[in-house]
């Protein structure tokens, strides 16, 4: 793997609410390689956004980091002062939010918004910042950047606004870009364009990207590596191909199987039963066990550790323990694996 830019180790975050302590993130570790896109996937409340807010130092007031470290350029971000964190936030680590409308100031010309972002992190003159802003606008695919520089956000469509938000994020040449559901509010065609844009920019600037989403299709499109989160933990992590074609965790099986394939018709979709747990006083054992048709007694006794499957692939399920019985994944997961192995062998045969 390429050198790592950002290392999250054993991060644990909780929120205090009137009902009790919510264990939002529990002992999460991952590293982000240079120029790599890591997707954090999971449903709402799984802790993916909290993880990123911890990295950005943007946690809500009632949140508490209980342990772990976030290493960036040799420094633990969790121990930095507010001032030092402000330098990094938007500078070396930038973020793109879900709703482009709320992250732009409706009363300010978009060009000025970008130029200010440039000047915030770099000692350049106004004129130079303006030049840079125009350059950024061009880079994110806004046509006639000089003219559009002087327009206000309402003059742009949803997709274009997201492009401008991306331009602002890129203003200080960040090393890490965190994209929190950047395409969820957009239409499919627009989504495809924005995804292409992010990939293109990444290739050109060698930025590392953490991509948060709940959409597995989007993940398949953008990610080099995937970390699947459930109930505050990473339950499976691996290269994109490994997670999509050779998933090992029953939750990942469930997620993939519940998406209709193009061939499927008239059969009932596979659905993970039940509802995600609330993370107040979690019961002992695997949080997914109650919804897991393949649950073992062991799942109820102890939380499974991440069992390595390959150098790059690991999953937190007792099914990977040597003593576990062999279980069959759902049919279309098995088909996926088969089809992929066939493709792989064809490819190696061709070589």
């Amino acid at each position, binding site marked *: 793997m390429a050198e790592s830019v950002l290392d999250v180790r054993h991060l644990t975050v909780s929120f205090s609410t009137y009902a009790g302590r919510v264990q939002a993130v529990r002992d999460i570790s991952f590293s982000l390689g240079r120029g790599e896109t890591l997707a954090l996937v999971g449903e709402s409340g799984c802790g993916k956004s909290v993880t990123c807010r911890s990295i950005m130092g943007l946690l809500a007031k009632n949140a508490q980091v209980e342990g772990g470290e976030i290493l960036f350029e040799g420094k633990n971000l969790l121990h930095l002062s507010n001032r030092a964190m402000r330098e990094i936030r938007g500078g070396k680590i930038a973020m793109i939010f879900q709703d482009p409308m709320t992250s732009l100031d409706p009363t300010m010309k978009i060009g000025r918004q970008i130029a200010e972002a440039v000047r915030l992190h770099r000692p350049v003159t106004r004129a130079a910042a303006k030049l840079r802003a125009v350059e950024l606008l061009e880079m994110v695919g806004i046509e006639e950047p000089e003219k559009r520089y002087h327009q206000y956000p309402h003059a742009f469509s949803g997709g274009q606004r997201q492009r401008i938000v991306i331009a602002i994020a890129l203003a200080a040449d960040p090393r890490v870009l965190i994209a929190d559901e950047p395409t969820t509010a957009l239409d*499919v065609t627009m989504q*495809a364009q924005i995804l292409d844009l992010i990939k293109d920019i990444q290739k050109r600037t060698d930025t590392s990207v953490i991509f948060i989403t*709940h959409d597995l*299709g989007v993940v398949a499109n953008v990610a080099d590596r995937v970390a699947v989160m459930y109930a505050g933990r990473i339950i499976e992590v691996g290269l994109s191909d490994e997670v999509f074609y050779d998933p090992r965790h029953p939750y990942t099986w*469930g997620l993939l199987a*519940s998406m209709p394939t193009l061939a499927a018709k008239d059969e009932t979709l596979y659905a993970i039963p039940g509802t*995600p747990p609330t993370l107040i006083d979690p019961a002992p054992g695997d949080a997914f066990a109650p919804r897991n048709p393949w649950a073992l007694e062991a799942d109820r006794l102890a939380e499974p550790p991440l069992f390595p499957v390959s150098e790059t692939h690991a999953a937190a399920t007792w099914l990977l323990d040597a003593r576990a019985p062999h279980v069959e994944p759902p049919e279309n997961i098995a088909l996926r694996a088969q089809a992929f192995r066939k493709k792989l062998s064809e490819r190696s045969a061709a070589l």
Partner: protein
Amino acid sequence: MSEKALVTVRNLTHIYPGSSGKRAVDNISFSIREGETFGLVGESGCGKTTTGRMLVRLLDISSGSVAFDGQDITALQGKELLSYRRQAQIIFQDPYASLDPRKKVKDIIAEGIDIHHLASDRQERDEQVSRLLASVGLRPEHLTRYPHEFSGGQRQRIGIARALATQPRFVVCDEPISALDVSIQAQVVNLLKAEQRLRNLTYLFIAHDLSMVKYISDRIAVMYRGRIVETGPAGRVYENPLHPYTRSLISAIPLPDPEGERKRRRIPYVPAEKEEGGTLVEAEAEHYVWTS
């Protein structure tokens, strides 16, 4: 499913109130057969939601007509409208905004029963509500809870129970799964399909997610800027898209298949300059495409 059309839409148009005269829905026609699921796809602002709301008479019909089971419902008023409302229901997109936060689940579900006097006494009403709640997979102890205590998927099921309470024949599903988590979407889709089989329901399924629409629908119509640009059997539209916009839309759906995604080429859609005039032309059996 039968060949009999339950809902017939002719030249339906909705003009935004105000002076602009912009058409949200522009002269569209289609029919929905009894017992089938008719999918309506398109991006936001294409008029699909407006169409759905007109069909259940929540929005004014500017011109054109809608017939339900042979009866023209375009201008129904009073008692007749009420009777139509009992038969045509709607499920909303946002499970957070579509349930009254100040009402208990029991009263949310029973609203339709009360309005249409479908229960003769309190006990019968409670029984009906309990049965509906059970059929959408919630437990009796949930009856006295408030919406904010539930997760998104559970709320959506409450919304479905509310719509089914009046024993409708036709249900407009207005993006019922797009606000839900992946693991919950399949649950809700399965629930909708099961109820359809059980009650012989007819659905208008509105969505922007083409893959799910293709899965659940028998026939699909693709909308673009207030017009239906293509309509036909779900499989045919998907496998053999004829309109360039449909092609672009299909090429843009991300699929959970990294290998496929790497090879994928997007097809951009550039709308033709001259958009006026044109009709739906039958290109193959039951498969129509807009041609100018």
